[in-house]
């Protein structure tokens, strides 16, 4: 009696589980602790407290969603390296005449593609293509990146492998029932929602925000940090910054001087002398500050320069970004030897469209950083080959060679789908087989293949599965299920609506994967308690967690376009809320039509 009063009918294990889940939410929202660490930390609490056994705690990492994902990363690497994906990006999209047409011509093929590849991968693949498209139809990339993200996630909801959350739910379903879901189980509801989604994006297209992209912000936005060197022979040597006209320059100002002996002078007083070898750090409009090279004889260089004549006049500026898995991450340009190796010089760094404080060459680089580099007058492709594995240029010319391996990789992909679609082998086995085939047929290099695997995502997926186990085991699922039933009555339609609404709301704040792990056991218990077939509940849950488009956190594809599109956090809200509501309605409608209760 006392127990039920104090603990609301839940045992202490249940409370530890609940507190752990909420701690993850708080840690993710309030700190910079990486999500995978937050998840693993809470998992440790569950195992230590004995809420789940050691075997249960580790079972998540060997579960279907984790293994399928890991294998699929390798398959994707093969498709990427053999040029299959390149071929698709070049040939899948037509040439649009206007914005409206562009939306349709973008969303339909992207949705179809991401049903068979992973939605997140598809978005990553098409970001650059979409940027080029945007230029063609004279709009900003952000206006096309949002439709891209919607199309990929909606298309991904059509099959089990399209969205990570589908895999999680199907894995949990198989654990509960012993039956695996059909590869195309969510196809019809998914297709319907995708169609509704495309129509809605067309209708609401004016709500899609216009944002400048990070690389164009190098040209237009003020407030970037640019580093230039004073050659020994420069006329300004021995003068004060004011006398040399280098303090307040057109379009910016001198914020810092770094001397040859690493002494830093900031703020820079007007009577500060200029020495040869000084690195002058300016903040302001990049283009205008770079004019100082011409007007004042300053240079961009990684080593000391005596005379401006040592610098090739034909050097040109190019923007590139630090991709995930780049070997430049966590290093500084002044230390990593990259500039020396490639003959390039880092001029400026931008992070999420904003300037990074301090000396660009001393900035610890992060994935997603946009770099402005002065490149040697070499062939663009030569430069890209040289920087492979470190940087991706926005105006990339790199073309993977198409050849027999392209065909082999495509065949592997098709066979993988056929095997799992016709239940010849389970999904886990087919993806592992496909990954193995990619390696055996040398469609991707064995040595660097682990780089393509996003271990962080796998850790989160594994932990999510364990949380789902804990929620079931501790009785939280039963209690919440029973409480929802007692509040909402025993009408299965109302229960389904309420649960989808809750799941999709929660998924706006946590990832779709997290929400599916938490809600699956509850929804499943409710279906059983109601004496209904769990199938419609499960499918509606799959769609509900993926249609959370109002925040960048809820949607993994939104997260991906967030940086490249130059978006702000609230940008997705305006169109996202309407999409959320409309897609939820479409979801309930179609699921009940296809899988009647």
């Amino acid at each position, binding site marked *: 009696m006392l127990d039920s009063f104090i603990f609301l009918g839940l045992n202490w294990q249940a409370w530890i589980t609940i507190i752990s889940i909420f701690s993850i939410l708080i840690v993710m929202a309030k700190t910079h602790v990486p999500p995978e660490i937050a998840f693993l930390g809470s998992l440790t609490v569950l195992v230590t407290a004995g809420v789940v056994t050691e075997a249960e705690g580790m079972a998540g990492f060997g579960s279907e969603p984790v293994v399928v994902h890991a294998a699929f990363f390798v398959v994707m690497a093969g498709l990427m390296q053999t040029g299959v994906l390149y071929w698709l990006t070049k040939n899948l999209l037509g040439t649009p005449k206007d914005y409206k047409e562009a939306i349709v011509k973008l969303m339909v093929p992207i949705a179809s593609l991401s049903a068979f590849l992973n939605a997140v991968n598809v978005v990553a693949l098409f970001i650059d293509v979409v940027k080029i498209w945007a230029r063609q139809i004279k709009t900003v990339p952000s206006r096309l990146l949002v439709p891209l993200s919607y199309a990929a996630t909606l298309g991904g909801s059509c099959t089990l492998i399209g969205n990570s959350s589908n895999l999680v739910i199907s894995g949990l379903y198989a654990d509960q029932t012993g039956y695996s879901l059909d590869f195309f189980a969510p196809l019809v509801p998914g297709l319907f929602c995708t169609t509704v989604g495309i129509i809605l994006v067309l209708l609401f297209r004016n709500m899609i925000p216009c944002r400048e992209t990070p690389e164009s912000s190098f040209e237009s936005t003020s407030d970037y940090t640019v580093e230039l060197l004073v050659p020994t*022979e420069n006329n300004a040597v021995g003068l004060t910054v004011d006398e040399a006209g280098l303090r307040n320059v057109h379009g910016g100002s001198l914020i810092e001087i770094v001397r*040859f002996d690493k*002494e830093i002078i900031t703020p820079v007083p007007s009577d500060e002398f200029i020495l040869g070898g000084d690195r002058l750090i300016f903040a302001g409009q990049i283009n205008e500050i770079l004019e100082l090279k011409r007007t004042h004889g300053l240079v961009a260089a990684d080593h000391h320069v005596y005379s401006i004549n040592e610098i090739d006049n034909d050097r040109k500026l190019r923007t590139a970004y630090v991709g995930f898995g780049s070997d430049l991450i966590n290093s500084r340009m002044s230390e990593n030897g990259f500039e020396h190796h490639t003959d390039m010089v880092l001029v400026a760094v931008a992070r999420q469209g904003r300037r990074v404080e301090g000396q660009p060459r001393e900035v610890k680089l992060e994935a997603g950083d946009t770099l402005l580099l002065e490149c040697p007058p070499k062939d663009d492709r030569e430069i890209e080959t040289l920087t492979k594995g470190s940087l991706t240029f926005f105006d990339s010319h790199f073309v993977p060679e198409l050849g027999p391996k392209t065909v082999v990789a495509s065949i592997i992909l098709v066979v993988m789908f056929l095997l799992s679609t016709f239940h010849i082998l389970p999904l886990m086995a087919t993806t592992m087989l496909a990954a193995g085939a990619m390696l055996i047929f040398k469609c991707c290099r064995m040595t660097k293949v682990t780089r393509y695997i996003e271990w962080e995502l796998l850790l989160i997926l594994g932990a999510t599965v364990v949380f789902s186990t804990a929620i079931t085991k501790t009785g939280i699922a039963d209690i919440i299920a029973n409480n929802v039933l007692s509040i909402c009555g025993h009408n299965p339609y109302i229960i389904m609506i309420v649960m989808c609404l809750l799941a999709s709301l929660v998924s706006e704040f946590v990832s779709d994967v997290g929400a599916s792990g938490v809600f699956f056991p509850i929804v499943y218990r409710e279906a059983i308690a109601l004496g209904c077939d769990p199938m419609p509940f499960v499918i509606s849950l799959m769609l509900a967690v993926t249609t959370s488009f109002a925040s960048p956190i809820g949607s993994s594809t939104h997260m991906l376009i967030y940086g490249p599109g130059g978006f702000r956090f609230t940008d997705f809200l305006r169109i996202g809320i309407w999409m959320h509501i409309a897609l939820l309605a479409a979801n309930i409608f179609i699921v009940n039509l296809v899988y009647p209760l």
Partner: protein
Amino acid sequence: MVIDIQEQNGGMVAIFEGRLDTPAAVKAQQEVAPLMENADKQITLDCTKLEYISSSGLRLFLALRKETATKGGKVIITNINDDIKKVFQMTGFFNLFEIRND
């Protein structure tokens, strides 16, 4: 860091001894005040015993140079060691000062 300032042949001579690093340069700024006052004369900076010079030290030399330029004097630097020579080469001091080796 020791700076010994003397009057010689109608000009000023400052003998630097030790390391003119950043903290020393801050202190030295006050010590060279007599040189600033005599910026209309020839000022010789004797670096025979100067072991090291930081950018702040160079700044001090430049300030003297500026002062003499306005008042009609002149700065001569003598007997720098090889390390300081390298620093002078990089910073462009050979173009700014008369540098002698006795």
